[in-house]
């Protein structure tokens, strides 16, 4: 077949849903290279009732694509290699090395957002998470599937339509889950339905954060380090669990785009390994390179690469190429009257093409109308790799407040006072960093209790 490539996009490989109705969207939720082929699995917005003609596709090395006969319609964004049985789990499907595909009928109508190894019987079982909080135990050999939890109850969330689980991840003897539930009421602070939570296989769940989190990543052979991506009003969030001290540390990153601030808009920003033993992170409209290892329990060298406009629910490395899946045109069940036919493209390139995407820029900071305490430092906020930088600080206290700006230039958590800024009573101050000033992390230390907002704008 003759293949047309335009700026890395092969239009013949676009994922196009049935015209319907119904028509909502077709996002590319899973990209999995397996036994010589690239498996593509996509999703409609809310189970098969919101769109047909989605489902499993297979792309061969010669760029021919076919819909797999086992393809089913639904909402799927989970992928995992199950090494003990030498199969992949992708959506409701299990695929062995000979490309035999089996489908778990009872999972077809669950909006599948995550699959991860079982805590006690990893040779035979995996956990499968649904976006509505349904937690299953799936036997990858017999396909026996059993619901073992309702996370709406376990994590005290609201119900379908008001809950939005996004991913699960097993590490350090616990199962992690997250929900990115976030709407106007969460933004205004009168609701907090986002979740980051963990479970040790028995007993009660522990809620770690009541903020929206979208995904996990990590290569556990590197010190059992686990990464979780989320956000709040103030910034994007990178929370890191380090196995050596069994500790979570919260770091903050800029938001490159304001179009990932509602639960429906995020799709699936991912942490994936596309180059050997390092991670490519897609977070709030920006790509970063990051090491999977955390020495001394600290993370540094988070390297901004590019901002982007494509909505990228999954990406992978295949045959030397970086492959990006997208979520492009959404008719959204009539919500969008100038877009009719749901379709999304695949981009093929090399990782270093990302440098030609948008310049790293972003908004964010440690505080957004936050009650801060004297001498208690803020979370570290990423500073490295951005060209122009300024810091805005404003507070609501009736007396002047001084704020120390501290920098960590080595990266490992040792902060040094760079300067102190004085902000008048209920006042505002701005500090523009001189061209060339940079450090790995920046944080602020208030010298008085107050309600403060601090935002950095990088251009």
């Amino acid at each position, binding site marked *: 077949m003759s293949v047309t490539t335009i700026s890395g996009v092969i239009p013949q490989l676009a994922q196009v849903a049935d015209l319907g109705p119904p028509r909502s969207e077709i996002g590319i939720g899973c990209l999995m290279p397996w036994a010589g082929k690239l498996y593509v699995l996509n999703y409609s917005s809310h189970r098969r009732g919101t769109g047909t003609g989605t489902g499993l596709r297979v792309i061969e090395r010669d760029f021919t694509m076919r819909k797999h006969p086992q393809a089913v319609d639904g909402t799927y964004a989970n992928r995992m290699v199950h090494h003990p049985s030498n199969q992949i789990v992708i959506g409701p499907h299990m695929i062995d090395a000979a490309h035999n595909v089996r489908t778990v009928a009872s999972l077809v109508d669950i909006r599948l957002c995550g699959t991860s190894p079982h805590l006690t019987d990893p040779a035979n079982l995996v956990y499968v998470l649904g976006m509505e909080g349904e937690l299953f135990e799936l036997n990858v050999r017999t396909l026996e599937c059993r619901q073992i939890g309702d996370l709406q109850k376990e994590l005290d969330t609201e119900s379908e339509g008001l809950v939005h689980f996004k991913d699960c991840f097993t590490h350090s003897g616990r199962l992690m889950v997250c929900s990115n539930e976030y709407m106007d009421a969460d933004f205004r602070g009168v609701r907090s339905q986002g979740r980051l939570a963990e479970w040790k296989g028995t007993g009660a769940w522990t809620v770690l954060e009541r903020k929206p989190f979208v995904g996990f990543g990590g290569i556990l052979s590197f010190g059992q380090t686990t990464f979780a991506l989320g956000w709040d009003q103030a910034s994007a969030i990178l929370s890191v669990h380090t196995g050596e001290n069994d500790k979570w540390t919260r770091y903050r990153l800029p938001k490159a785009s304001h179009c990932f601030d509602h639960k429906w808009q995020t799709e699936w920003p991912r942490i994936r390994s596309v180059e050997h033993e390092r991670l490519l992170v897609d977070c709030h409209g920006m790509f970063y390179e990051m090491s999977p290892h955390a020495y001394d329990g600290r993370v540094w060298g988070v390297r901004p690469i590019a901002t982007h406009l494509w909505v990228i629910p999954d990406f992978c490395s295949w045959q030397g190429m970086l492959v990006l899946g997208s979520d*492009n045109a959404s008719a959204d069940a009539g919500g969008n009257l100038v877009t009719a036919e749901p379709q999304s493209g695949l981009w093929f390139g090399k990782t270093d093409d990302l440098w030609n995407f948008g310049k790293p820029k972003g908004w964010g900071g440690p505080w957004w109308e936050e009650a801060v305490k004297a001498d208690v430092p803020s979370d570290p906020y990423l500073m490295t790799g951005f060209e122009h930088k300024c810091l805005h600080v404003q507070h609501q206290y009736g007396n002047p407040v001084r704020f120390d700006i501290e920098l960590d230039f080595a990266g490992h958590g040792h902060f040094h006072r760079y300067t102190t800024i004085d902000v008048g009573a209920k006042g505002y101050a701005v500090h523009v960093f001189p061209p060339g000033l940079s450090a790995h992390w920046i944080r602020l230390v208030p010298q008085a209790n107050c309600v403060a907002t601090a935002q950095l704008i990088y251009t």
Partner: protein
Amino acid sequence: MSAASVQISGVFPAYAIQAGSGKPRNELGIGALMPWAGKLWAVSYVAHRGHGAGLYCIDKDLHIARHPESVTGTFCNRFMHGPSDSIIIGPHIIDGQGQVRTSKKLAEYRLAGTCRHLTDPENKVYVLSMEGPFFELDLHTLEVKELCNLTYELKLWTERIPDITGKAADRVPQHLPQPHFKACHTGQGRVLVANNSYFDQDHAGEWASGRLAEWDGKQWTIIRTTPFNEVTGRENFGQNIFALGWDRASVIMMVLVNGKWTEFRLPKASQTFEHCWQTEWPRLREVEHERYLLDASGMFYELSGWLLEGKLWGVRPVCSHLRVVPDFCSFAGLLVMGDNQVSPVGNDWSVGEPQSNFWFGHIEDLWSWGKPKGWGGPWWKTPVKAGEASAPYLMTGFDKKVLHIRCESDAATRVCVEIDFIGNQSWCAYANLAVDANGYAHHVFPDGFSAHWVRLVSASNATLTALLHYT
């Protein structure tokens, strides 16, 4: 080598839409693009009269064909009608099997927009023509009924001029502004229309012929009398509505949230979108899931359709551009633009055969187009009242920034520069500039300084011009 396979920078020269060399010659733009029933549909347009325009479809192998239902006219409307499961593009109604019907009556008019019917959305749509006739189209019978003429309803003309259709519109009497309606949209229980009429008399303040207006089904209300190119929004996400226009000072963005309008301002990247004929159709479109790509006065931006707290921020400049882009869409993973290029209009003897082409690329290609730069500000010889804040003007995402202020009053004033670094219209005083009577002042922002929005507040009543240059 097959000519059809030659692709240069995203352009397939063999796909150019050409009018031939016959007369009349004016322009051939690509006015609307809509992926539908496995293909990308496109309509092209002439200025008023001409030939060679039509309806095209492009498949995923990027083969292009001119459809036998093609008619030559001026068409820039696209709309998805869910209840009848069809799209409306130009005067054509296309069903899910790709069957095309054409309204011969509508083909006689220059079609600027199509939008949802207020009372019979199951069966009808509204269609707006550039000269002001506002129709209702029955999608089953193709019956077309003129509901009113907005040129009179919105008081562009107070005297009746007989039978100005699209083909006669270039014979508008000299003493009247030419109506130039550009877009319509239904949301929040009302129909919005935009007219971008703008001539020397508008710039000089002798008349104000642009319009942003709304209709509740009974009465038309004029909201603005400056030129507007676009008004659009989603059916959900709070039905927030965005209208884009301009005046002498800058690009104007009006946002309707829960029935309340708020004005924002953006820079002009180009001075060539400053006359109503030049703008073509700068659009706000969704090409990526649940976010907008905006084209305004020569610059592309990304912005969210969701407005947290009902506030607009995070309007992210992507690039400035040179192509005139009457429509764009997402198709098979590609960003596709329709263009308007070779136009031998007026006395331009340097160009020949009217022709335009499509551009196919990846959205991230936009980053390598022109750096975001622009001119504009909140005031241009504006009688400013003491203590009254200007509209917010976009600041984020630009590199170097300077503010110029000129006072044309006989008393001095002090202008406070306020910035909003959060985005939700929380303002902080950043600096004060003293401006002498009939004087001038400027402020260069330090390298690296940035905020979402900037606005100005004058301490005294004065006639002020305040423009920012971003480079």
